[in-house]
């Protein structure tokens, strides 16, 4: 047996295929065999891009009418598999939709799931995934046993995205069957947080604030610095949980993974779950009162000092340059 048929759960935002999807498609291609994309929604606008990145086919449920994707997409996929089209491996992004669809499908197919992966390799008919644990210091390689489809979810930015130049993927309808008692969860309104400047997970420069800022109002120093450097502002989980800033700014294991050119951590101690989200930054600057803060273990430039003194002076110096 070889791995010859891989599905990738694909997503689009504002009509464009997400970078995360392109990363998974690129990796799937490298594993050999055919790659198909799976879309919860209408695929006509994205079939060309999906094809460019290696998908020869895309299964599309059609518009979900506001239904949460978990039960709907999992049921549609189970129906395709029951109909005889069985993939060896299904790759999901490690985000809300990906996790929910994968979870429901795992029950329907009675298959295990492995999440938080950063790599995958294939050897004949066997698939091995790699997961970082303990804040990324230890790597665990796990091989799926038994038969497929193997279900695996991958952290964002685990792979590079590269176009292959293929033609548009063939769209195959995968309608959502009657969901019975599992249906009914429906989105009635969408609220998007207003933000100016580059997106947090795409910015070249990220300035993040943590508990060391002392109080919610002081986050404005982080905002101002991010703006001065034309970057994005981020936050530690501690201040998101405290309600100082919205979750969309959270960097870390359960927030966004960022890999900017420069990451400035202000008043952040460097809990392992935060480090998971920013360790891949090219250059890290940390400012913290505590010389023992774990963040200094990964900073290229560490300043042991009070953010309330350092940040205003830094801002003034930058603004003075004009």
């Amino acid at each position, binding site marked *: 047996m070889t791995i010859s048929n891989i599905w990738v759960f694909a997503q689009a935002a504002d009509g464009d295929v997400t970078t995360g999807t392109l990363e998974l498609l690129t990796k799937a291609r490298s594993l050999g065999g055919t790659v198909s994309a799976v879309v919860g929604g209408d695929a006509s606008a994205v079939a060309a891009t999906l094809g460019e990145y290696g998908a020869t086919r895309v299964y599309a449920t059609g518009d979900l009418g506001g239904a949460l994707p978990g039960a709907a997409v999992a049921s549609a996929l189970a129906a395709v598999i029951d109909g005889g089209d069985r993939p060896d491996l299904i790759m999901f992004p490690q985000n809300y939709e990906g996790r929910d669809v994968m979870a429901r499908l795992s029950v329907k197919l009675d298959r295990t799931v492995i999440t938080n992966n950063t790599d995958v390799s294939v050897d004949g008919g066997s698939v091995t995934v790699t997961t970082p644990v303990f804040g990324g210091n230890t790597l665990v390689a796990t091989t799926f046993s038994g038969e497929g489809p193997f279900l695996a979810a991958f952290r964002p930015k685990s792979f590079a995205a590269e176009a292959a130049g293929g033609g548009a993927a063939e769209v195959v309808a995968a309608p959502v069957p009657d969901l019975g008692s599992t249906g009914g969860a429906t989105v009635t309104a*969408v609220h998007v947080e207003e933000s100016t400047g580059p997106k947090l997970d795409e910015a070249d420069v990220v300035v993040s604030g943590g508990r060391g800022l002392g109080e919610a109002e002081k986050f404005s120093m982080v905002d101002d610095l991010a703006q001065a450097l034309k970057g994005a502002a981020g936050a530690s989980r501690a201040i998101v949980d405290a309600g100082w800033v919205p979750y969309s700014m959270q960097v870390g294991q359960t927030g966004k993974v960022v890999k900017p050119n420069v990451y400035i951590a202000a008043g952040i101690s460097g809990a392992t779950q935060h480090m998971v989200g920013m360790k891949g930054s090219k250059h890290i600057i940390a400012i913290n009162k505590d010389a023992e803060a774990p963040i200094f273990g990964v900073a290229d430039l560490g300043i*042991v000092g009070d953010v309330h003194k350092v940040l205003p002076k830094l801002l003034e*110096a930058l603004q003075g340059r004009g």
Partner: protein
Amino acid sequence: MKVIVCVKQIPDPALPGELDPSTNTLKREGKLILDESDSYGVEMALQLVDAAGGGEVALVSMAPNGEVSGLRTALAMGAAQGVLVSDPELAGSDALTTAKVLAAAVQRLGGADLVLAGTESSDGYTGTVPEQMAEVLGLPSVTFAKSVAVDGGSLKVNRQTEAGYDEVTCPLPAVVSVTAGVVEPRYPSFKGIMAAKSKPVDTVTAGDLGVTPTGWAAAGQQITSVTQAPSREAGEVIEDDGEAHVKIVEFLEGLKVI
């Protein structure tokens, strides 16, 4: 209103985690405490039952060695009873098996109007068990809830998204996973702690629930290696003498960021 909350009892996250070298899975021998993510679920359940004018909050948990200390914490907060599934055959269970076990425990309690859970555990981070439970129980679900309100026979949920939040409606009964910070968990009162000691905890095995344990062998996954990741080295660390900001400016200039 009846709400069942899934609670996990985990090794204290303040202590460094350790892998058992013979199985390469997380050691769970020491003290286990209530996962902080689940304290939000327990608090939310207590508030919803209160808002509904009465009812009961019950707990389900799967833990080794008959561990109940985390359950007692949740009972001290105000939950009425719990089912603990403890069975050496369940060691090494994957998320799917855990979901089947917890779903069976929910059914042993006679089901509920609402099943609550955290979005992922603070030791495993798999993040699929609540949704898997919903599928096993044949229920609709809403994950990543920032706020939950009951409106007649359905829920109004604000669901966290990467860009903000969505308003979602969902019929009851349902499974909901709640984010950290969704409510402020109450500290158990002394009276609550004393009362918790005599609240019923039904301890059962997988067999009692009619679930076939898969344990290590049949979990569908096998850990093949554990290695140290290449670690990032620390760079220059200096103390602020009032001029540290100049160093930062120079660093940024060197990178041509400014």
